[in-house]
């Protein structure tokens, strides 16, 4: 995954997490049944989405940096290449 795409995903993840954490912070100062609902259904969803986007970005970045099999085989048997 190129660097720009990763950074874009990190920003998106960060934005969602900031929004979710902000909702959570506000609901902590409001003792009402609605606060609980907002926390779960708005804050919770934003936080989970943000974490998922981050984890997906990690996975995609990990796949992009994995070397292919031909490269690995060549590296393991340098004496073959020398011949």
């Amino acid at each position: 995954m190129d660097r720009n795409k990763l950074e874009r995903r990190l920003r998106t993840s960060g934005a969602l997490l900031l929004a979710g954490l902000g909702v959570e912070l506000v609901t902590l100062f409001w003792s009402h049944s609605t606060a609980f609902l907002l926390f779960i259904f708005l804050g919770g969803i934003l936080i989970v989405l943000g974490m998922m986007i981050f984890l997906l970005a990690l996975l995609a970045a990990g796949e992009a940096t994995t070397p292919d099999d031909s490269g690995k085989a060549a590296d393991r048997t340098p004496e073959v290449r020398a011949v």
Partner: protein
Amino acid sequence: MVTWTPLLVATIVISMVLVALIMFRPAITIGKGGKILAFVSLFIFPVLSGGGGISEHMERSKRTEFCLSCHTMADHGKSLRVDDPSFLAAAHYQNNRVPRDQACFTCHTDYTMFGNYKAKLRGLRHVYVQYLGKVPDKIELYSPYNNRECLHCHQGARSFEEGATHNAEPRRLQQIKANNLSCNSAGCHETVHGIDKLSEAKFWNEVKEDGSK
């Protein structure tokens, strides 16, 4: 009593600062340290904050003010201040037989979020009805009140075990303990909240900790 709210608020604020750092400076994740920071900021801290938040809200939902925050419960809240000892909820609340800040939960421990999964589903349905449906004119329990909730505190108490009425008949006490004879039976402790009698009731003005009313 130790309160974890300031710690939770601090955790959330730190999480927000770290998330903002990654969000506005994503280039710091190039290095190994930056990658670890990103993982801590975008995963570990949000998990801690979310888990702490859930715990805090679950504790708050046990509080009397939470239950009474829905206007549907206004009459039930009023019933706690009726100046009549035959009103069971009022007698318990006013004499600190249940903690005042958790009065509802203490007696209704298996209700909505704090019961089994059916109770939790009912709780969600209540929320739906509260905001999108029509609240019924009369609110009733889904099933008869279980003596277990009363016996949680009263079993073993002298006034219960040796009370004249409870021992008036040979097997009455065993029937009460086995939930075969309801504590709320007619002629016994039948007036609990007494919602239909509130219009004629007198009310007690609570004496606050500083002595004011």
